[in-house]
Structures are given as structure tokens and as C-alpha cells.
């Protein structure tokens, strides 16, 4: 049953763009199709998560291929948010990218294709189908990023994305083929015990780290992510960032589930990479002044948190600490859902703000909260959630990881992996605090204060459908945050599917119960307090901002986002290397001076691109080979002939 529903959802999503391609007037049909597809698929996924595993297989005339899908707890767990976001994004796009706008059909078609294929990736049981769906997602995302390919920025973003993603795909080719070498089957079959120790197993894990790391945007493979998410239309960014990069996580989890135990070096690598990209991701995020780039870097941070959880799980499993492993996997998987929800919410609300203020520059917005209160509220909820604050969902998953970190120090002998796992706690603490700084800055500068540009000044609230698209996401954030115990069993099933050899994780629900209680208390009291204070000051007089007695404050006097970020950027200068233009005024009566600073992506702009340019320069020498003189060409012929004759005469 669930399999049929899921595949129906996939087909509906994939086909949803066709009406719009046919005629502009049919865009409503597209919206209906994709929302329906999302709903049906979501039901299917939830059924798959509650009920047992279901499968569906059709023949496929490709060597090794079979149109086989299998909806087990893990697939369902990953597919559910895909369908939810597909529906929400499709609804949002209906007004955000209206049929009258340029390339509307194009955007709708590729959006449907991407979301459908994405769900297919999560459910494919045949590795070649997995590979095909994977690549379809990659290519259609490329087209979506390149929607406005007249802009050089979009072009380069799309180009970097497609290159990185193709490298990942080729690594995935190797993974699939190696798996086939292990199991002599094109399905996801558990490997023989001890495969992790074999050389081929090592190769498999290294390739997995590269392929899935690139796709997930894990540091240092994140190079494609900020540009891509900034250039794509907002609802596309929401899906790409909310669930698209989870493809990599899914692949990683799926692969880990095939091993009985991975070398602890692999777990360590995951842990350290995760920690690095969570801290650096948020640090880079603070330094951005493009709202969507900022959110993109937060995706890197959250992927870091998720991968940290997986690292805990893998390490603990290898070293026989089931409780730790369960906590790690549970935290990671729950954060997959949470990040999907609040990051999509943030991108959609940010998209609405950009839609109304006609800019992505944070420092050109401001005061939108008074003009578009709903959007502001949505962004605020997303911000509280992503910062991991109680009583919303972000807190629950991070709490699980914290508990894992603390458990490792309380109940583990001297030495061992525990020493590494301890790092999780301070890392999460730093990440959380920085994320808070970042979103205080973002929310404050975009939605509070006074408008910094005329466009922001006459911004209007977005249409109802766009707001309606955010509602389910808000509900999700609130639900997981307030009644986490309800989701304990589902999470348990997913964890069991991810690590079949672990004892079934029944402890989760009991563990989450007190969180639920306190979350409800906090929410209740906090809301009551705020409301009563509002009631108290309903008839309060209003005046100018006092500002230490300065009578005529202007928008330009507000504290900018960049200056808010300056402190943290200074602390992380060793990694970020901010670029500062503009002279510093120095005389007593300083001349008019312009000051501008930005932070390039260290890995991409300072390491990778120079290397590539060098390689290209070297390859340039090969051109002398093709010199234009036919005599030389014939000489190559002769030389080849003589050489081969010599070889043959051996």
C-alpha cells in the first residue's frame, strides 16, 4: 500500500510540470498536481513509517536495472519531508513565480522533476535506479539554479554546482560498482561481516565520504552550496537545502546500514568533519550580507550537526556502546527532519521578504516586521527553531546529541572513543551560541528597526497562498518541539532501520517524555507572559526611539548587519580572511570615505580555483602537440607504428 502511494506521489510530482510546459494558463493544474502528489506521497511515507516495509518492482530493460522501490522505515523517514516540501514549495511557487513571469513553465517543470526524483532516490531499491534518480535530481537542480542564466552570478553558481555534483556522481558510479562487486547484486544487500576491514571496503567508505560529502555540502566539499542556494528561486532553495542535500545524508546512512561495523577511523572522520563544518559553517554564515547565502551557510552548519551525530553513532557502534549509538543516530535523523522543516520555513519566509523588498542584501532591508507581520512571525519561529532553542524542534535533536556527548563522559571507561565524543558538547555549545548571534542579526536587521531602502519601505505582505505554504512547516516545528515523545516510536523505527544490528531503541520515548513536559510548561508560561505584557501596555504612548537624546535618528544611523557580525568575524579571522575595501578616514576632519567588506569562501576562492587555474595553464602546453603541420601528424603516425612494432617484436 505505502509503496503504491509513494510511487504515485513520485509520478504526480514528476509529471506536475507538463501542463505548464504546454500552456501558460495551465499553471494552476501544475500546482494542484504537485500538492496532490506531495500529499499522497506524504501519506504513503507515513504509512511506511508506521506500518511495515513495503516494496514494488517492475522490470526495466537496462543491464542490471530494475524499477524496484522499497519503502522501509529509513526510506519513509527520509521521503516524508521530501513530499511535504514538494507540496509546500509547489503551492508557494504558484504566486511567487506566477505564470506570467519569464520561464514559469521551465521552473515548474524542473521543480516537479527534481522533487519527484528526490523522493525516488530515497526509496529506490535498485542501485542503478538510485543512480539514475540521483543524477536526474542533480541535473534538474542545475537547470533550476541556472534559471536566470543571463546573470553571470547564476551562471557561475550553476557551473560550480554541476561540476561538483558530477564529481560526486562519478564517485557514486564507483560505489555502486564496488557494491556490486561485493554482493553480486544490484540491490542494497547487507555486506558480509567484516567487509569494512577489507581494502575494497575502505575504498567504498572513502568514495562514500567524497560522493555523499559533496552532495550534502559537508566542509570542505561545501564549495557549490552557498552560490547555488543563493541563485536558485527561493522555493527551489527551500527544497534543495531542506531535503536536497539530505540525499547525501541518506546515502551515507544507507551505506552504513549495510556494514556490520565500519573502521573507527571512518567514524572519527565523520565526527571531526561534522564538527568542523558545523562551527565554520555558522561562522561563515554570520559574515554574509546576502540573506540567502546566509541561510545557505547555515545548511552547511546543520549538515555538520547531522554528520556529527552519524559519527557518534558509527564510532559507538564500532566500540560496542549501543546506547550512545542510538542517541547519535536518533539525534542525527531527527535533525534531518527538523532542518528540513525550519530551513524550508526560513527560505520561504526569506523569499517572501526578498519578493517584497526586491533585494537580497540584508543591509538594504529593515522594518519589514511592521509591513509584513505574518512573514516576520514565520521567520522568527524558524530562527528560534534553527538556533536550537526550547521549546521548538531544533532543541530536541540537539538535546539528543548533547545527551550523547554527556553520556560518553559519564558511562565510559578511560580513553577510548569517549575522549573524542566529548568534543561534541563544546562544539555544539559554540555552534548554538554563534547561530543565535547570526539569527539575531538576520531577523533584527531584516524585519526590525526602520527600513534602509525605499523598496523595503513600501514592502507589502505576500499573498495568502504563499503564507499558507509556510503553515505546515510551522506546525511541524511546533509539533516536534512541544510533543517530541509522540515522535519517539517513529524515530526508533528509523534508527533501527539505519542500524539494524543495534538493540531496538525503545528508550527514546521515555527519554523524550520530560522534554515534552518542560517544553509545554515553557511555551505556556512564555506566551502567557508576553500576551499579558502586551495587554498591559496596550494603551502606551509612542515616541521616537530615544537614542541617548539624539532627536532625528535616520535609517543610516542604525547598526548594520556587517557591524553586528564584526566581532565574530574578528574572532574567526584566521579561517575567514575578510576582504576590506575603502580608505580609513584619518584626519581630524575626515574626507568622505566609502567602506565595504566581504568574506569570500576560503576553500573555493582561496584554495580550489587557484589550483584549477594552474592545472589549466599546465594543460595549455599540450596544445603544441596539435601544431597544424601535417608532416608532424604523419610523424606521430610513423612513431606510433615503430613503437608498436618494437613492442610486438618483444
Amino acid at each position, binding site marked *: 500500500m505505502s509503496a503504491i502511494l509513494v510511487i504515485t506521489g513520485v509520478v504526480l510530482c514528476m509529471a506536475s510540470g507538463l501542463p505548464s510546459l504546454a500552456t501558460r494558463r495551465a499553471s494552476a493544474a501544475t500546482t494542484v498536481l504537485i500538492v496532490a502528489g506531495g500529499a499522497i506521497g506524504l501519506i504513503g511515507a507515513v504509512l511506511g513509517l508506521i506500518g511495515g516495509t513495503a516494496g514494488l518492482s517492475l522490470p526495466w530493460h537496462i543491464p542490471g536495472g530494475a524499477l524496484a522501490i522499497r519503502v522501509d522505515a529509513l526510506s519513509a523517514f527520509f521521503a516524508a519531508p521530501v513530499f511535504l516540501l514538494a507540496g509546500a514549495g509547489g503551492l508557494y511557487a504558484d504566486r511567487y513565480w506566477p505564470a506570467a513571469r519569464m520561464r514559469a513553465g521551465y521552473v515548474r517543470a524542473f521543480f516537479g522533476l527534481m522533487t519527484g526524483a528526490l523522493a525516488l532516490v530515497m526509496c529506490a531499491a535498485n542501485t542503478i535506479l538510485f543512480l539514475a534518480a540521483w543524477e536526474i535530481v542533480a541535473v534538474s537542480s542545475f537547470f533550476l539554479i541556472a534559471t536566470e542564466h543571463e546573470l553571470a552570478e547564476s551562471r557561475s553558481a550553476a557551473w560550480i554546482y554541476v561540476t561538483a555534483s558530477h564529481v560526486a556522481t562519478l564517485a557514486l558510479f564507483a560505489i555502486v560498482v564496488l557494491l556490486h562487486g561485493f554482493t553480486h547484486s544490484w540491490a542494497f544487500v547487507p555486506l558480509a561481516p567484516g567487509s569494512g576491514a577489507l581494502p575494497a571496503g575502505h575504498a567504498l567508505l572513502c568514495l562514500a565520504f567524497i560522493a555523499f560529502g559533496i552532495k550534502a555540502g559537508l566542509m570542505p566539499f561545501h564549495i557549490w552550496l552557498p552560490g547555488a542556494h543563493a541563485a536558485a528561486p527561493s522555493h527551489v532553495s527551500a527544497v534543495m537545502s531542506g531535503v536536497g542535500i539530505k540525499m547525501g545524508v541518506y546515502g551515507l546512512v544507507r551505506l552504513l546500514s549495510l556494514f556490520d561495523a565500519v573502521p573507527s577511523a571512518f567514524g572519527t572522520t565523520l565526527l571531526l568533519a561534522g564538527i568542523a563544518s558545523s562551527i565554520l559553517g555558522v561562522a561563515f554564515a554570520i559574515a554574509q550580507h546576502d540573506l540567502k547565502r546566509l541561510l545557505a551557510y547555515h545548511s552547511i552548519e546543520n549538515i555538520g550537526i547531522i554528520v556529527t551525530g552519524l559519527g557518534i553513532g558509527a564510532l559507538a557502534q564500532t566500540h560496542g556502546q549501543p546506547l550512545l549509538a542510538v542517541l547519535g543516530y536518533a539525534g542525527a535523523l531527527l535533525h534531518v527532519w527538523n532542518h528540513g522543516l525550519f530551513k524550508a520555513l526560513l527560505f520561504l519566509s526569506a523569499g517572501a521578504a526578498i519578493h517584497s523588498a526586491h533585494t537580497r542584501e540584508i543591509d538594504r532591508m*529593515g522594518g519589514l*516586521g*511592521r509591513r509584513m*507581520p505574518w512573514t516576520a512571525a514565520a521567520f522568527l519561529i524558524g*530562527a*528560534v527553531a534553527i*538556533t536550537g*532553542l*526550547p521549546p521548538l524542534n531544533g*532543541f530536541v535533536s540537539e*538535546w539528543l546529541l548533547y*545527551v550523547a*556527548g*554527556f553520556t560518553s*563522559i*559519564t*558511562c565510559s571507561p*578511560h580513553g577510548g572513543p569517549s*575522549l573524542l565524543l566529548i568534543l561534541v558538547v*563544546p562544539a555544539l*555549545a*559554540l555552534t*548554538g*551560541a*554563534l547561530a*543565535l*548571534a547570526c539569527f*539575531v*542579526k538576520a531577523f*533584527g536587521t531584516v524585519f*526590525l*528597526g*526602520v527600513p534602509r531602502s525605499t523598496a523595503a519601505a513600501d514592502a507589502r505582505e505576500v499573498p495568502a497562498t504563499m503564507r499558507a505554504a509556510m503553515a505546515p512547516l510551522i506546525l511541524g516545528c511546533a509539533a516536534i518541539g512541544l510533543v517530541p515523545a509522540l515522535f519517539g516510536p517513529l524515530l526508533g523505527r528509523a534508527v533501527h532501520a539505519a542500524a539494524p544490528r543495534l538493540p531496538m531503541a525503545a528508550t527514546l520515548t521515555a*527519554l523524550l517524555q*520530560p*522534554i515534552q513536559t*518542560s517544553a509545554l*510548561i*515553557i511555551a505556556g508560561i512564555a506566551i502567557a*507572559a*508576553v500576551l*499579558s*505584557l502586551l495587554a*498591559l*501596555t496596550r494603551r*502606551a*504612548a509612542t*515616541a521616537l*526611539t*530615544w*537614542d*541617548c537624546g539624539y532627536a532625528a*535618528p535616520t535609517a543610516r544611523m*542604525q*547598526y548594520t548587519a556587517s*557591524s*553586528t557580525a564584526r*566581532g*565574530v568575524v574578528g*574572532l574567526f579571522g584566521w579561517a575567514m580572511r575578510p576582504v576590506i575595501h575603502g580608505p580609513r578616514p584619518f584626519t581630524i576632519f575626515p574626507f568622505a570615505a566609502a567602506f565595504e567588506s566581504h568574506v569570500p569562501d576560503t576553500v573555493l576562492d582561496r584554495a580550489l580555483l587557484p589550483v584549477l587555474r594552474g592545472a589549466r595553464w599546465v594543460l595549455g602546453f599540450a596544445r603544441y602537440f596539435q601544431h597544424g603541420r601535417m608532416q608532424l601528424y604523419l610523424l606521430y603516425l610513423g612513431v606510433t607504428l615503430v613503437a608498436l612494432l618494437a613492442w610486438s617484436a618483444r
Partner: protein
Amino acid sequence: MTAVLQLLLVVLTAPLLLGVITRTKAIVAGRSGPPLLQAYYDLGKLLRKDTVLSSTTTWVFLAGPAMAVVVPLLASLLLPLAGPRAPLAFTGDLILFVYLFALSRFFTTVAALDTGSAFEGMGVAREVTFAALAEPALFFGLLALARISGSLSLSQLLTVDGNSWHRASAALVLIIASWFIVLLAENSRVPFDDPNTHLELTMIHEVMVLDHSGPAFGLILYGSALKLFVFSALIADVALPRTGNPLADAAATLGAVLGICVVIGLVESSMARLRLVRVPQLLVAASLVAGFAVVLVLR
């Protein structure tokens, strides 16, 4: 029962702490100083006044003061102030404890930005940056305590009995030291900040409340008093041995908290505020001290 006792203790005695500190400073400076209960008078006056709001603000502006009061109260319910077990104790509550304060920080800073004032923006920038440095210190301390007590609930974590003092006295001293620094930073005391002046450009926390007035401002003052109480109580719990009796424990806690306030007073009167660039260094030092405690207990 203990819950009520605990709440009463916190709610009623919190403002007294401010009085104790000012009185200590006055005595050291050789003045008579304001009465001990001055804070109560101020609060009463502010609550009777009415509010003026900046025309740029939204509801977010008022969420700040509300949170500033709600959060310390909730946090206090996680601490075993009276009796062996806190009202809301559970496995892993220590994380909730820290994140509650993050919650209040989020809303107070956002509220400050709501005014669009340059000063308050500056205060926000500093607040969030320094908090990021203070939080690891808190967590390192908790890690070490978790290792010592073998539990993830503040109620067991903080009731340090004699033999663990015997076992890990050095670590515990380090933790207390580093947490005391965090306390000073979080409650905007000298040497990080100066609670007496609101007009200094080098303000951190205090500058964010410039635009609040009337009851809202009163709530902020009260909230900071509560916060001071909770942090002091946290340290006091580490230091104090426990008798099983709620009343006795409550009394002991109060005594210890007041003692800590005296120490704060002495610190404030003995040193000046640090230059802003030095503040991060001190906080990192606090984190390192706590981290060293972790290393000690892992050894």
C-alpha cells in the same frame, strides 16, 4: 511543596541581592549607601509608572522583558535549591538549563534591535559575541561535574558530597572559579560591564535596555536580579554540602548566595572595568580553566 518553597525563595529574595552588592561597595568605599531594600522600592515605583514605546517597535520589543523574567524563574526550577531534588529535574536537564538562558538572550537582543537605535545595536553585537565565548565555559564545567557525579541531572550533578570533594577538589575549585567569571559576564558586573551607568558607549548588556520604560523596565531589572540569583545559586550548590531538610537547605542556599553577592561587591569595588578588547580574552581564559577541570577529571 519544595517547588513552592523554592519559588518563594527566588521570587522574594532576588532583589535583595542587588542591595547587598551596592551596600558592600558602599561600605568598602566608606559611604553609608542606599538601603538594602532599595531595589524593591525601585521596582515598585517602576511598576506604577506607565510606558512609552518607540514608534518603530513591534510586539517583539515587549517579548524581551517578558522573557527576561520568565526564563530565570523556569531555570530556578531545575536547580535543587531546597531539598535533594529540583521540581523539574530529569536526565539531561542541564542542557535545558543553559539553553533557557540562550532563549532569553535571543529575545532581549531582538527586542533591543527592534528600536533601530545605534547604541542598542552595538550592545546586541557585543552581547551575542561574548555569550558565544561564555557558553563553552559553562558546558565544560557541567562536563566535569557529570564525570564526577556520573549523572546527567543537575539535581545529582550539583549535590557534591564529601568524598567527591575529596576525590576531585582541584577540578571543583577550577569549575567554581570559571563559573564565577561567567557569572560576572552574564550578569553584566564589573569587570565586564558597569550596571550603574546606562549611557556608556562601552556598555554591553545595560545599553540594550535604553528604550524600555515603566513596568517593562521594571521587569528587566527584576529579571536581572533573578538571573543573578540563579547563577549564584548554581555556584553555591556546587560549593555547599546538602542536608536532607528542605528548609535548612533553602536557608543554606540563601546564605551562600548572599555570600557570593558580597564577593561580587568586593570585586566591583576593587577593580575597574576591562577594556573591551580584553573581555574576550578573559572569557576564553574562563573556558580554558573549565576545560582544564575536564582534563583533570578524565585523568
